[in-house]
Structures are given as structure tokens and as C-alpha cells.
């Protein structure tokens, strides 16, 4: 059976790989998706940095056998809020830039120049 660590680690790897590939694309929409994928990867990564423990409470409880680290969860919450806001901003910005310049290429060239 696959261990939990392997599962989480490979999930982070797949998300990061997809994110890096998409961020390097030419049009804004894939790039926005890539940034979102990267931020998901980071969120899982930060969460895993508190170690993977099952059935342990994050808050102090006398009856509990042990505790999981609550701090990474707080960090992840902050990171989620920030990345959510930034994704929204980048979507609006990309849209506005498309309407303003008539092109949605990240490098600023128009569709007329070069291959798509």
C-alpha cells in the first residue's frame, strides 16, 4: 500500500510540474491557471511541513495522545487568502489588458507577429 507521505509528495510534485509548465505558456489564461496550480502546490507543501499526523488534534487537549502542529495550518490559511486575492487580481488585469491592447500574450506581442 502507498504511504501517505508518498501520496502527498507526489501530489505536490504533479501540481508543481503542471504549474511550471502552464506559467511558461504564452497566453495569459494558461499562465493564470499555472499560478493557481503553483499556489495549490505550495499550500499542500506548507501543510506537510507540519508533518503528516492522523487523528491528532491541533489544539491542546488533555486526553489526546499527541498533537499536530497548528502553525502550518495558520500559515496555509494566510497563504490561501493572499493567493486567492492575487488570482482574482491577475484575472481582472489579464482581461483588462486584453481589452486594452487587443492581445492576450504575456510577452506583449500581437497575434499577427509570428506563429501562434
Amino acid at each position: 500500500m502507498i504511504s501517505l507521505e508518498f501520496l502527498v509528495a507526489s501530489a505536490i510534485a504533479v501540481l508543481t510540474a503542471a504549474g511550471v509548465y502552464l506559467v511558461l505558456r504564452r497566453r495569459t489564461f494558461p499562465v493564470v491557471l499555472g499560478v493557481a496550480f503553483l499556489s495549490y502546490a505550495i499550500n499542500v507543501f506548507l501543510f506537510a511541513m507540519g508533518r503528516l499526523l492522523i487523528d491528532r488534534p491541533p489544539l491542546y487537549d488533555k486526553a489526546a495522545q499527541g498533537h499536530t502542529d497548528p502553525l502550518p495550518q495558520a500559515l496555509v490559511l494566510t497563504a490561501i487568502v493572499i493567493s486567492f486575492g492575487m488570482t482574482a487580481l491577475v484575472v481582472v488585469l489579464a482581461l483588462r489588458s486584453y481589452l486594452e491592447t487587443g492581445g492576450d500574450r504575456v510577452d506583449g506581442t500581437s497575434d499577427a507577429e509570428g506563429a501562434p
Partner: protein
Amino acid sequence: MSLIVSYWVVASLILPAVTGAAIVLFLRHHLTLSRLASIGSCLTLVAVAGVLVVEAGDGLIQSYAMGNWRAPFGIVLVLDRLAAMMLLLTAVLALIVLVYAISTGTDRKGWHFHPLFQFQLLGLNGAFLTGDLFNLFVFFEVLLIASYGLMLHGQGGERFKAGVQYVIINLVGSTLFLVGVGLLYGVTGTLNMADLALRVAAASPGDQGLIAAAGLLLTTVFALKAAVVPLHFWLPGTYAATTGTVAALFAIMTKVGAYSIIRTSTLIFGAEAGDLAFVAAPWLLPAALLTIGIGFIGLFAARGLRDLAAWAVVGSMGTLLCAVSVFTVPSMGPALYYILHSTLAGAALFLVADLIAQRRADHGDAITLAPRFRQIEVLSALFFLAAIGAVGLPPLSGFVGKLLVLDGVRASPHALWIWGAILTTTVLGVLAFARAGSMIFWKSASVEGEIPLRSLRGRRGGVGAAAALVLVLAGLTVLAGPVTAYTAAAAQQLFAPDQYIEAVLGPHSGGRR
């Protein structure tokens, strides 16, 4: 920390936060009132930063525990000489840029200039004061989010194109920052920088590889903000596409990257860290040398004055980081002096370029022949002085700064490289600025007529603000003695991290019990 000082420290964060929020909530339709509030906040910040510099000048590092949660569990603000100096630099620059923005009417070209400006100051001040790595990330985000808004201020197609690139590259940078922070937390179990310093020094050999990776990742992110080659590609486009006013304020943004490199390298990866001591230094020095080269060669590719100023900023970051990457007390003092100088000189260049572009109407800031324009006499003098400052010729502080840097790096094994790079690029800089200046002012004198202008704003205020920056540069030269004494003392403090650790974690640290 004494109670009074702790109020001052917190005030430098609360004031811009409250002012920004108040303007956006209550004053957004009242231009005059929001201008007054913004100016008032900036003036107060200058006073507060002045008090903090005096307070930090006695050499005692003070920490303030937010919400009275003691370090390493809560977030601390730490005031040392370097932090106080950066606060004062930010406040002075912000005040001058704000006066410029108001007198030229830049703040009316779009919505919410003043709140964004205040939030930018909040992010900057927070980044300089915080003693917590994750909190540093949060303040980075605050200043970046505000900078996205400011960068796009006034809009236009070119600006949006550059804006999309600027936002995306910084988002990717933030992701890398979080990976670095996460790795450090995973290995050491803390994010307080003083506590990190202790744990990194005590790390087992098995963990050192991961910590080194985290340190290098963080340095990469800071180098991205500092526009170090090969991570500089975003800067010229961004700075040339935004308004001159905002570009002048952004002169401090690259220094946030430099500050973060200095802070993390001396504190967390300081001499006590054993094998991990100054883990980024071998990478930083070659990158800095390349940055000087590319920056000053880029001056020749500039087609407009704002391009010219942007490449000058890249070049000055190279000079600064050359001095930083030696990581010794005698080289760090001059580096800190050069931070002060290069920020103000870069801002002065952007303001002068903007003034000239406004007066040349359709010709803008392009380095081409054009008829005479209004106020050409005073603007040519200002351009000359700002160029002298940026290149580093006497009598302005760039010369003093470069001389001190050359003297400070003498003991380094790579001193020859640094000397060669700085001296050669200074000549290149003189050539490039002379070429631009003679094209715009000298050769253009043969063109007949004068560029007609329907209206002109900032005749006095705008020119005065640019002149004020040059005056501050002159002041830095005249007061070079006390200023270098302060920066040398700040460098001493940086390379004795036990004082910092003692102030944050010791029995007399902030927070009343």
C-alpha cells in the same frame, strides 16, 4: 523596550494603515482632504522615523512583541540601526514623491492614488521592522499589492502589458518565498528570525542541505526584488511603463530586496551558522558583478530618459550588492551608505525625466532632437546634477559612496574584480549620460522654435521636489562624516547578531509580563 519607543515603532505601521483606510472609506471623493491626510501622514512618518533613528543610534536593539505574545511564539517588531535608517529613507523619499505627485497632478489620473501610496508605505515599513520570516512575506505581499495598483495608475495599453508581466513574475516570486519559508519551518520548527539564527547554528549535519536550499531559495526571491541579473528582466519595462512619480517611489522597492538579503544573510546565515555561514555569498558576488555590467551597458540601449533611469537603477543595485556580497564589517558600512545614495539618486532621475517628458509634449522623454521646451534652463541643471549623482562623480554623494565601497572591499580576495567592474562602469555611465544629455539639451539648441504647451502643472512644486532630492544628495555629501559613522555602527550591529537575538529572546525582550 521602553513604552514610549514602542509606541513610535508601532506608529510607523499604524499611521499609514489607518490613513490609507480612512482615505478610501471617507475621503475618496474629496481630493483636497485626501491630499492633506496623505501629506500629514508622510510628514508625521518623517518625524517618527527621525525619532527612531535617534533612539536606535545609542546602539541598543529594541523589540516589540505584538499583542504581548512573547517571541518566539508571537510576531515581534525589531528596531535596530539598519531598520531605523531604512524607515527614515522611506519616509523622506515618500514625502518628496508625494509632493511631486500632488503638484504635477499625477494623483488625479486615476482612482485611489493616496490610499495605495499609504498601503505601500505600510508594506515597506513593516518589511523593515519585522523580526519574523512569515510576517516578512506578508509585508512583502502588502507592498506588492499596493505596488500593482500604483504601477497601473493612470492606465494605458503599454502600462497594462508591462503590468501583467510585473504581477505574474512577482506571484511566482511569492511562491518561491513560501517554499523557502516552509522548508525552514519544516527543518527548524520556528519562523522567528532570531530563533532561526540559533536553530540554524545548532542544526544537525543531516539537516544542513535542506537549510542551505531554503536559504538559497530565499536569496533568489530577494534577488528577484532587487533586480539582480539574471532576474532583472522585469525592471526596465516596468519602470519605464509606469508614471515617473511611481517609478521614483519604486526606487526604494529594489532596496527592500537588498535589505532582506542583508538581514537574512547576517542574522540567520551569519558567521555562527558554521558550514552554512553566508551560504548565498558565492552566488551573489558573480551575479552582482554581472548586474553592474548589464546595468551600465543597458544605459546605451535606452531610447528614453526613463529607460535610462531604469538601467541606472539596475547598475546601482549591482554596485550595492558587490559591496554587500563581501559580507564584512568594513564593506557593509559603505554598502548601507550607498543604499541611501542610490535610492535618492534613482528617484531624482525618474522625477527629472518625468518633468522633461511633460514639457516636451509629443516628444516625451525620447532621446532625440526636439525644439526648446519650458524651464529648459533649470531642468538641464537638474538633469546634470541627477546624472552626476547616479554615475557617482564628485561632488555629490555617489562619489563618496563609490569611494567608500572601493575602500571597504579591499580586503576581499575578489577586490580586483569589484574595483575593475565599478571603475569601468563609472566611465560607461559618464558616456551614456553625456550622450543623452547632449542630445536633449545641447544639440537640440540648434532646432528652431519652442514646444507649445497648453497647460503646465508642477512649475514650482514639481521642479522643487526634484531639486529637493538633489539637495538631500548634497546633504548626504556634506554630512558624510556622521552618516558613515552611523552606517558603520549599523554594520557592526549586523555582524554581532547575538545582540539582536538577545533583544528578541532575552529576559529583557519586548512585552510586559
